[in-house]
């Protein structure tokens, strides 16, 4: 069976959930192999193996962390040329897409971004995309070169399929050109202990309707009650009720969680573009005419300041009655 190469990403030393989802997709298309740009320690190899990787390519070098994107492109292109995979899967996010884009030019290969599904088909993997702000669904294939497909987080649930991967260290001599953009300073944003917005199964977001930075904390408490990530509309981040990294929308993050709760968010098209792929959408807003209600599966017209505390309490009641909540404990 042909190899399918997954570009695995790590956050704080742990393999990202979205990368494990790529391994699950890779299993549909061939033998999954993972590329780790950084030390492939035992824990990393083990989790990649748990989710199906039969091989782990490991490329090391300080350059990978110190320089923006390009050393990883060198690494990906080197491994593709060495192993000739049937396809390359990356996570559709800023870094994944840029690495994939430059690799696509070097390999003269077609690239498909923002895929929400990938299935085997005649002529190569068939990618499904949700386009035009969710109005259309398109199916595409790469017709030249090694198909490079960038897949959205939460496209599939990561499925364990244990293997003992062979670890293949790959020596890459980074070109001078790879050292063009140097990261001179990094300020880590304090970890909130909550799931990453891009990967989370539950997202609780707040908008201008929350009214104040203090009231915005209700959004955070509701997220914690559900084990979810916190998100925000552009307005809320402009008002500095939370950091920019929480912004969901056309110019922020695009998320597609199982559950999205929009609180005090009117639902302008630029915001909807960032969350309309969510499986279940719930909205709480005091304006019955808010556009968000045209896309919500359950809408509550009410005051977020009374609804959210009451909802947190109701969730507490149901959880203690019903046992383990459905939203917890899937991929590590």
């Amino acid at each position, binding site marked *: 069976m042909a190899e399918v190469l997954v570009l695995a990403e790590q956050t704080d030393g742990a393999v990202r959930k979205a990368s494990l989802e790529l391994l699950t997709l890779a299993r549909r298309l061939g033998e999954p192999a993972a590329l780790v740009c950084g030390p492939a320690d035992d824990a990393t190899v083990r989790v990649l193996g748990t989710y199906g990787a039969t091989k782990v390519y490991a490329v090391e070098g300080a350059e990978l962390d110190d320089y923006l*994107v390009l050393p990883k*492109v060198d690494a990906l292109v080197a491994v593709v040329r060495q192993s000739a995979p049937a396809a390359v899967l990356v996570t559709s*996010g*800023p*870094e994944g*897409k*840029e690495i*994939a*884009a*430059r690799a696509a*030019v070097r390999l*003269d*290969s*077609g*690239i498909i*971004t*923002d895929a929400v599904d990938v299935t085997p088909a005649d002529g190569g993997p068939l990618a499904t995309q949700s386009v*035009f702000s969710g*109005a*259309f669904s*398109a*199916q*595409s*294939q790469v*017709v030249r070169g090694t198909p490079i497909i960038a897949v959205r987080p939460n496209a599939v649930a990561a499925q364990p399929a244990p293997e003992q991967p062979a670890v293949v260290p790959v020596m890459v001599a980074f070109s001078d*050109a790879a050292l063009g*953009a*140097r990261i001179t*300073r*990094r*300020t*880590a*944003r304090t970890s909130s202990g909550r799931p*990453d917005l891009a990967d989370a199964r*539950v997202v609780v977001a707040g908008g201008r309707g929350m009214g104040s930075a203090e009231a915005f904390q209700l959004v955070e408490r509701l997220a914690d009650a559900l084990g979810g990530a916190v998100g925000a509309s552009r307005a809320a981040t402009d008002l500095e009720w939370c950091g*920019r*990294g929480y912004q969901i929308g056309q*110019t922020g993050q695009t998320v597609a969680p*199982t*559950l999205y709760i929009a609180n005090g968010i009117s639902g302008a*098209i*630029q915001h909807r573009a960032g969350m309309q792929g969510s499986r279940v*959408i*719930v909205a709480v807003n005091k304006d019955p005419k808010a556009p968000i*209600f*045209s896309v*919500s*599966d*359950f*809408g*509550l*017209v*009410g005051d977020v300041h*009374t*609804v959210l505390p*009451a909802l947190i309490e109701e969730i507490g009641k*149901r959880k203690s009655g019903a046992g383990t*909540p*459905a*939203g917890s404990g899937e991929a590590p």
Partner: protein
Amino acid sequence: MKIVVLVKHVPEATAAWGYAEDFTLDRANVEGRLSELDEYAVEQATVLAEKGLPATITYLTMGPAKAVDGLRKALAMGGDDAVHVQDSSLHGSDALTTSLVLAKAIERIGFDLVLCGMASTDADMSVVPAMVAERLGVPQLTFAANLTVAGSAVTVLREADGETQTVVATLPAVVSVTDQTSEARYPSFKAIMAGKRKPVATWSLADLGVAPGAAGAGAAATAVRGAARRPARQAGTVVVDKGEGAAALADFLVAQKLL
């Protein structure tokens, strides 16, 4: 210093978008505008010039006839001149071809700094800036929330996953900017009229030395096999809170097995 700003003319966000028969985005039947995200790049170029950077600013777009409207909007916001690459053979081009054509045009114009928006608002791929940088053989500093140029060094602040990075490169380079950079200015009537007088050159593929067969749908490395309108998300239940709203919502979550 020469700054080239890449812009795209795209359908209005509120218009009804659809596919033409050949699975390309139907641009003919919708109102268009300069992509909102490109306005930030246009603004940053003007801000750099106003801060005293001695630079000429050229806007560049690739597209059908109407695309020139995007250039005129940019020229109303600032800049010196513009180039419109227009050729019927470009219809149906993919990102690889787009980046090839833009890179050749940028080389013909001459550049120290290429500025772009973080993504187009129609295809939304976010790959063209990286591809253009690859073809030009220069570094890319993308998703910049802040941008400064001093001498031949460009420094950006970018929000990456979990951290804020300061990234430095020596020009020439490609920089893409987000909406975190300053608000795009609203041109005055006088500026709009001045923009209309600035020169716009129209180049064909032949002017760039690109063979017609190297562009368009026939040269694309990807193909759309099918497209269908997704059923619009129907508005679901809407309940007015009269004290029991939170309980009703919690019941809904339980019923959906989300709780």
